[in-house]
């Protein structure tokens, strides 16, 4: 078990409410964001996260540290959100969604933006990407961040889940696969498509 996780668990077992408040504060926004992708309502997402905390406390004595505490907690949130969505008949099964979001060929950038065959420069940019603002322009960065936040919620559900875990929460691909129950191949395709779509949405707003 990671030393940091061991220290957190020890503090919780001592009944340290401050340690618990820190844990909740660190994960609450991320939990609500990922829960929302299944239940599609802010209130329901809050309920899911609350139920997940209760479930986590009930089973925390069985946490063995095979994954990090954070990965384990995210797994509980995802399972709780799934059960909630199933009960509400809100979402198709994961396998059907994954198939829908990975099967058809979907280019990262539309073909019309590249020079067509059979020119020497075929496959090269015809309409180049417009640059995003530089990191020194603080106001524009804040706008871009808000646009990115909104753009994530426009993605299809599983792409959204993958981008939230991999890019917002910085889980490794392997950890995201474990949390969501995805194959490595699907995770890579979904992350690639999600990022390409996000970039396209942001570019349109420039």
């Amino acid at each position, binding site marked *: 078990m990671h030393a940091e996780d061991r220290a957190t668990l020890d503090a*919780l077992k001592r*009944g340290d*409410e*401050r340690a*618990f*408040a*820190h844990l*909740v*504060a*660190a994960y609450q*926004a*991320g939990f609500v*964001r990922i829960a929302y992708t299944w239940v599609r309502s802010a209130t329901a997402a*809050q309920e899911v996260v*609350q139920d997940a*905390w*209760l479930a986590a*406390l*009930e089973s*925390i004595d069985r946490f063995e540290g095979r994954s990090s505490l954070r990965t384990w907690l995210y797994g509980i949130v995802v399972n709780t959100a799934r059960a909630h969505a199933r009960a509400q008949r809100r979402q198709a099964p994961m396998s059907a969604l994954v198939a829908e979001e990975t099967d058809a060929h979907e*280019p*990262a*950038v539309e*073909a019309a933006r*590249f020079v067509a065959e*059979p020119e*020497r*420069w*075929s*496959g*090269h*940019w015809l309409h*180049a*990407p417009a*640059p*995003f603002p530089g*990191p020194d322009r603080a106001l524009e*960065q804040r706008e*871009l*961040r808000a646009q*990115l*936040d909104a753009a*994530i919620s426009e993605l299809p559900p599983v792409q959204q889940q993958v*981008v939230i875990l991999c*890019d*917002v*929460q*910085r889980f490794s*691909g392997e950890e995201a696969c474990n949390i969501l129950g995805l194959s490595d191949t699907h995770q*890579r395709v979904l*992350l*690639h498509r999600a*990022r*390409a779509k*996000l*970039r396209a949405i*942001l*570019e349109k707003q420039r």
Partner: protein
Amino acid sequence: MTKPFELTCQEIVELVTDYLEGHMRAAQRSQFEQHIVMCAPCATYLEQMRTMVGLAATLDAPPEVVPQPPAAVLEAFRRWKRS
């Protein structure tokens, strides 16, 4: 017909995620990097992806002042502590 690059821009944009995630073999990585050095639009595309991924990681930053957990969650913690 001689092609200006080993990889076209259209191929580059499909490889960007593998590149950023370190899923490329050395030979392909080097072809990718050669292209990026020579091609300003693809360099912009790659930079946009880096900017975006960097910004995404800041979206759910924990609050600076730690709030009290929701009442029901705190109550559950107190129950668990007693048990």
